[in-house]
C-alpha cells in the first residue's frame, strides 16, 4: 500500500517606505496540499476457507447465503478514498500607515483568506473565504 503527501508553498512580501512617515506592506502566500493512499483492490475471499462457517452458512435454513461477505476483505475496497487530501489556501494582506508630524498616525490594513477543500472527509467541507478591514489611529509620545 502506497501513501503520499505533497505540499507546495509560495510566499512573497513587499515592504516599501514611500516617504519617511509613510510605508506600505503586502504579504502573499499560497499553499497547495495533497495526499492519497493508492487504490486498494482486494480480491474477494469468498468462500472464506473456514469450512465450518461455510458449512453452517450453506446448510442452515433461514440464514442469508451472503453472510460470509460480512467478513470479505473485498468489502474494504474503497476505504482509500477516506485518505484523500486536496486543498489550497491563499492568504493576502496589504496595509499602509502614515504618520503626521504631530505624532498622530493613521493606518489601514486589508486581509483576505481563501480556502478550497476539494476532497472533504470527516470534518465536512472546510472551504471558505474571509475578508477583514482594519483601520486604526496611533499616537506616539
Amino acid at each position: 500500500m502506497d501513501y503520499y503527501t505533497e505540499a507546495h508553498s509560495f510566499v512573497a512580501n513587499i515592504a516599501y517606505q514611500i516617504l519617511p512617515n509613510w510605508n506600505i506592506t503586502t504579504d502573499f502566500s499560497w499553499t497547495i496540499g495533497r495526499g492519497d493512499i493508492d487504490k486498494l483492490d482486494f480480491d474477494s475471499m469468498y468462500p472464506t476457507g473456514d469450512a465450518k462457517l461455510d458449512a453452517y452458512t450453506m446448510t442452515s435454513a433461514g440464514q442469508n447465503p451472503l453472510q460470509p461477505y460480512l467478513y470479505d476483505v473485498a468489502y474494504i475496497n474503497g476505504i482509500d478514498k477516506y485518505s484523500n487530501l486536496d486543498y489550497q489556501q491563499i492568504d493576502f494582506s496589504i496595509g499602509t500607515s502614515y504618520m503626521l508630524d504631530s505624532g498622530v498616525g493613521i493606518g489601514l490594513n486589508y486581509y483576505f483568506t481563501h480556502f478550497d477543500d476539494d476532497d472533504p472527509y470527516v470534518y465536512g467541507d472546510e472551504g471558505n473565504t474571509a475578508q477583514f478591514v482594519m483601520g486604526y489611529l496611533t499616537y506616539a509620545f
Partner: protein
Amino acid sequence: MKRISVLITVAVLALAVIGASVCAAEDEKVFEGSLKAGATWNAQGRLHADEGGSKGGLEYNALAAKRWTGVFGGDLRVNSGVLDLSFDGLYRDLNDQDYEGMLSLGRVMVYKADYNRLYHRLGHVSLDNLEAHVFSTNKPKGQKPRTGTDPETGITYNTGGANTIGTASVYHTDRDPTNQYAISRELLKHSVAFHIPNVPEFDLTLHHRFEQRKGDRQAMTNSKCRACHIVSDTKEIKETNNEFGPELNLRIGTMAFNYSFMHREFNTDDQEMENLYNNTKGKVGEDFLNRVQYNSASGPLPYAEVPENRRNKHNAKFRWDINGHTTLNAFYLYSNNKNTSTRGAYDVLTGNYDDSLKLKDNTFGGRITARVMPGLTVNIFGKYQALDNSDVYVEKVQNRNNTKSGDTMTLAEGYIAHGADPAAVEEYIEPEYERLSGYDSNNFKVGVNAAWRVLRNLKIKGEYEFAEENRDHYDVHSVPESTKEHLFKFGADYHLMHGLKFALDYKMAFIDDAYRLNNASCTPDGSYGRYASKPNAADFYDLDRAYGPAIYDKRTGDRSNRPDQIYEVKFRTYWNAMSMLNTSFHVKYRYSKNGELDGRDWSNNLLMTGLNIMANPIRNLTISGGYTYMYDSYDSQYCIAIYDG
C-alpha cells in the same frame, strides 16, 4: 484577565515611581511610547455556528465569528538609569491578545513577562465514515439497507430472500451535531532574575509558566449498546499546566555551573464523561457477559478522559574551559513524571487500586571539544539514559453469564468444561498478572566528529555515532531485545567566491533490529485464521476458536515503521549576488527502508526543496519571496484484520 491587570498595574506603578525622573530629565527622553486604537470589520460576514467544520484558513482566527471588533494597543519605553521598563501590547478580541513587558531595577532585579491568548477552532466529525450497516434488511429506524451491485467490489447486496444478518453493523449518533468546537488558550510566561552587585559570578532566576485551555470539544465512545453504536457528545474543557522553578548560574574561573529545577502540574477540571453500558448480547440470544472485563453492575465507566500528571525535573550542566583549545561539557538530568489520575473509576478495569503510574528518567552525558591543530576541531561525546516505568498489577474480573440460558460459568470454566486443557486456559485468560512496562530500558550513545578547514575556503566534516537501546521486557511486548544503530555523516562547506557558498551533507545509518512488533499481523497462508463465537455452546467454549489461539497467535508478520537503513543527502547554497540581492537554495532527499520484516518491507521517500530570494532594488523597498516543495511517500504491506463477534 487577572494576569493582564497585574501587568498593567506594574506598569502604572512604575510610571508613578519614575515621574520625578521624567520631569527632571530635560535633555534626555526617558519616556516614550505610542498608543493604538481602531476597529476591524469582517467584510465577508460572520462565520456561523451552523457552518460546522468550515474553518479552513480560519483555524486560529478569533475575529471570524464577529462583524466588528475593536483594536487597542501600545508600547512604552522608560529608561531612567535606575529603572528601565518596556511594554508592548495588542488587544483585538478577548481571544486574541498579546502582551510582553520588562522591568529592571538597576539591573539587580529584572522581571520579564509574556502573555498571549488565542482561539483554536476544532473539527466536528460527522461520524458518517463509521457507517457499516450494509447487510441488514431488518434495518434500524432511519437506516436504509444497501441494495444493488457495488461497481468496485462486484458484490451484490440484498438479493432477496435474506433474513436478518446485520449483527456486524455499526451505527452512529451525534448528540450535538451543530456545535462548533473550539478551545481558548492562554499562556503566561514570566521570570524574575536577581544579580548581586559586585558578584557577577552568581545569578538566580525564578521561572513560572502557566497555560490554560478552556472550551469544548467532541468526545466519542460506544453507546450503551456497546460497539455496534458509536456516539459523540460535547465535552467541556478546562485544563491548566502550571510550571515553576528556580535556575542558578555559578561561574568560578574557567568553570561554569548551571542548575535548574522544574515542577509541573497538569490539572483538569474537564467535564466528567461517563457511560453506563448494557450487558452485551449475542445475535441469537447467548449472553457474552463472561467475556468482558466490565460488569454493568459496577456502575458507569469514564471515557474521553485526559489523565492529570505531575513532573519534577532536575537538570545540572557543567562547563570547563580546560585551556584555550579544550572544553569539557557535562550534564545530568533526573525526571519523575507521575500520572495522578489512574485511580478512581479506572480501578475496576485495571485492578491497580490507589496507585499511580510513574516514569523516571535518569540521563547523563558529556562532550569534549578540542582544537587539536589549527583548523581541526574534534568532538567526543556520549550519553546514557535509564528509563523506569511503573509496573501495574492487573486483575481480571471473571464474570459469570446470567441464568437466562442456564449457563452460569465463567469463561475459563466454560473452556475447561468443554475439554480445554486447564493450563492452556490459564495461559490464555491470565486472571491476574503484573504488566511490565515497555518503557523500561537502558540506552546509550557514543560518537566522535571532526571538522577540518582544509583550505581557507573549504571545510570538511565527518561523524560516527553508535547508539544502542536495550529493552527490559522485550519478551512480553514482542519487540526486539536491543536495537543498535551505526550512524555516519560526511559533509563539506565550500566558499567559492565572495558571496557564493555551498554546503553538501550526506548521512547514512544502519540499524540492527529496528523497533518493531513481532507477529503483529498476517496469517502465514492468508487464511485469515478461523472464527470464534459460533452460536452454540460447544463452539462458544471452543478454545481453539477463541481470538487468542485462532487469530492473534496465528499471526506471523512483523510490522514496523522504523527503518533499518537510512540514506540522506542535503545540499544548500547561498548567494549574495550583490548588495541588493540575496538568494538561497536547499534540497534534501532521504530514502529509508526496513527490510527485516519477512519480505513485507516498509520504505519511505522524502524530498524537500526550496528557493528564497530577497532583494532591495531601490532604497526603502524590500522584496522577498520563497517557494518550498515537500513530497513524502510510504510503502507498506497491508494485512486486513478480520473480526467476528
